[in-house]
């Protein structure tokens, strides 16, 4: 399991440079990518099924991003956008296209549907976490709405 998690770490590291993150935050974003992939592998090995595992992984990424956002005084998206990249279904997109040019329309549609649902599961996980985080922030500021959410 260590191998793939390390691959995810370096791949996310590259992405955080491509997205112009600066300083120590680069390493923190990469760590988020590794954490997300670890959660995915763990959940998948406990036979959670791939889509459910992507959902769990994106919740882990979201929680990590919210915690880091507060620790580092940076927008949560700085960490979330990079750390979620390994989960994005690039493989699903590719095989959808691949089956389609082979003429296997039914298989292509099936894969396309699965890819869409995976993307939806990942985004829903992230949204769930950020909604809860906003709720906590709202309650802890006593309902003051004029806050800039960093």
């Amino acid at each position: 399991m260590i191998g793939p998690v390390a691959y995810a770490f370096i791949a996310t590291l590259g992405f955080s440079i491509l997205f112009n993150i600066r300083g120590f935050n680069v390493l923190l974003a990469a760590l988020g990518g590794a954490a997300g992939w670890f959660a995915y592998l763990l959940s998948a090995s406990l036979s959670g099924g791939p889509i459910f595992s992507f959902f769990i992984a994106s919740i882990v990424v979201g929680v990590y991003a919210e915690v880091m956002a507060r620790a580092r005084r940076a927008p949560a998206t700085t960490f979330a956008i990079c750390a979620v990249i390994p989960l994005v279904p690039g493989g699903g997109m590719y095989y959808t296209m691949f089956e389609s040019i082979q003429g296997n329309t039914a298989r292509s549609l099936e894969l396309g549907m699965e890819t869409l649902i995976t993307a939806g599961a990942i985004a829903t996980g992230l949204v769930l976490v950020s909604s809860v985080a906003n709720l906590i922030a709202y309650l802890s500021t006593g309902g003051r709405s004029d806050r800039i959410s960093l």
Partner: protein
Amino acid sequence: MNTNADKHAILHLAADTGRLILENGGETHRVEETMNALCRSFGYGDSESFVTPTGIFLSVSDDDGRTRSIIRRIKHRSINLNKVLLAGRLAESVCSDRLSPVEMRRELIRIENEPGYAAWLTVPAAALTAGFFTLLFGGGAGEFGVALYTGGTIKALSLLLSSIRLNEFFINVAGGALAALLALVSAAMIPGIQANSIIIGSIMLLVPGLAITNSIRDTLAGDLLSGIARAMESFLIAVAIAAGSGIVLKLWYLLAGGIR
């Protein structure tokens, strides 16, 4: 602060801060909140903003009921999370410390001109990213090596194409085509190498991760227009990548007659 010129300056400042955040990959609700908070901290009682991925509308009313509004059109978007962070911090410090509009303008210009990472760093970063994604998606050492130069070449190509202002759609078509071409040629030349994991690892550089996530985030937050716009954006990017790599794959199989 009470003069007309100042009030106009503040409106422009808020709109330009919003534009900076939006152009560099910030979410629409972040732009709206930041602009509203800025306007309120500078003494406008009422501030309404409406932000979509392609434009900013901001309207403020002062206490004697006079309304001013401003529109900023967003034509080019890229991802520079450092600028989003700096602009957010600037807005925050303005709201709490009461930085003067002149000082804020100076800071804003400084952030806007902040250089991104240079190509000597982003091209190797793209190479490593593609390489390790290939390993993650089941490639071996040989596939890793091929993905290294494929990823680097894709990044170099997209830097070149965006410097001549080619539109995003064709940059992604070209990137997808290049990924498939380099992977297939390498797989044909080097024995024991499969093209699939290389292509997937390399197109991960182009996939619309940010657009998909922001699209669903915006939709669930009630910003339906932004959600649809971003969904369209991510769909277009995905179609462009698929079209580029699909054309090359199709031609390859037609010419080589079969799948390796």
